[in-house]
């Protein structure tokens, strides 16, 4: 029979476990892709697992494009953030399967991309990359592609035909 004392200890252990998990998640929220500052890797859908096994915590991250220059920097930034948050010794791995998909970008991620001047991925029509719903500057739907690759592999260059401003579109992946 479980004594009250054991019960309390179990409850405390669960609370500690939850607290660590919450602190890990909060720390991850504070890390951004250096190429798209201001949007956390959580909102970009790059955090795919936070788990614990016999006291050892492990975080799995999904890289976006294979050649993304941030691929080495992000785990480094995550570890630095964990140290800063007093969470040393957490394993951080890049995991390619299942492959990252733009569907994993959160609604907050979409809004932040827009705020940053990048049209978020919008899967519609027959094109695999979809197309921007509207110009992030003036909200016009009258836009045209300039180039399927932009400052990074994940984005295409577009131009708005109403305000004439160029902007970037985050392609579907």
């Amino acid at each position, binding site marked *: 029979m479980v004594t009250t004392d054991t019960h309390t200890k179990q409850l405390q252990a669960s609370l500690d476990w939850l607290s660590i998990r919450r602190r890990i998640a909060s720390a991850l929220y504070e890390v951004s892709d250096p190429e798209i500052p201001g949007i956390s890797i959580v909102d970009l859908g790059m955090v795919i697992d936070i788990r614990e096994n016999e006291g050892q915590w492990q975080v799995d991250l999904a890289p976006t494009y*294979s050649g993304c220059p941030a691929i080495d920097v992000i785990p480094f930034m995550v570890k630095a953030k964990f140290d800063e948050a007093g969470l040393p010794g957490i394993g951080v791995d890049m995991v390619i399967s299942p492959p990252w998909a733009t569907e994993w970008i959160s609604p907050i991620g979409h809004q932040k991309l827009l705020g940053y001047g990048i049209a978020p991925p919008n899967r519609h029509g027959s094109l695999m990359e979809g197309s921007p719903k509207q110009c992030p500057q003036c909200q016009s739907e009258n836009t045209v592609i300039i180039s399927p*690759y932009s400052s990074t592999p994940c984005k295409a260059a577009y131009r708005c035909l109403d305000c004439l401003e160029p902007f970037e579109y985050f392609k579907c992946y």
Partner: protein
Amino acid sequence: MTASNSYLLHLADNPMILGQRLGEWCGHGPVLEQDIALTNIALDLIGQARLLYQYIAGLEDVRSTEDQLSMLRYEHEYYNLLLVELPNKDFGNTITRQFYYDAFNLLQYEALTNHPNVSLRAIAVKTLKEIKYHYRYSSEWMIRLGDGTEQSHTIMQSAVNQLWRYTGEMFIPASFENDLLAQGQAIDIISLKEPWLEKVSSILSQATLSLPPDEPMRTGGKEGRHTEDMGFILTELQYMQRTFPQMQW
């Protein structure tokens, strides 16, 4: 070197060498957008090569590092296709080389998504997403330039013809591929020839370009026998690792 490891290196060396070649366009593209596009594709390719090298480096019977594998082998130890090591020449030539390779790579990676090796399959599923974009990019440029001005048409037809002799190698199995094919561990590349030809013919026809006549095909890259150009790429690629051994960035 086992057949399986040679095959994996072949798969890794193709994007590594082509990525290095495309990287030469950095700062030299015809317009800014295309300069960026070519170097973005180069990044994708080097990233794909890296995933493969990292996997190979960790294998029991290899025990190496990704830097050792990508930057410290000798010329005859690289198993890439001759096509990917050829010089960039002009933009039209670079695009044509890319188009021939992308059309093949697309079919190859679609097939690799069913490979029995789970790690290779995962890399294929991931990178296929990028390869589709590469193929779209190069085929659109084939059409735009082929069906463009008289000058661009002439340049493209000349590139299509000049590079044709390097396409046969994609569909002629190397000895390691033959060994693996019997065990279902390699893709039957011979079977990719027809669908490749269909893709290429369709785009060339939209580009108002003609399919080159049959001619003898150059081979050897997959067995480590390269063109003169390969040495020049490796000189540049390996310079830092050989000058400052074990350097990291």
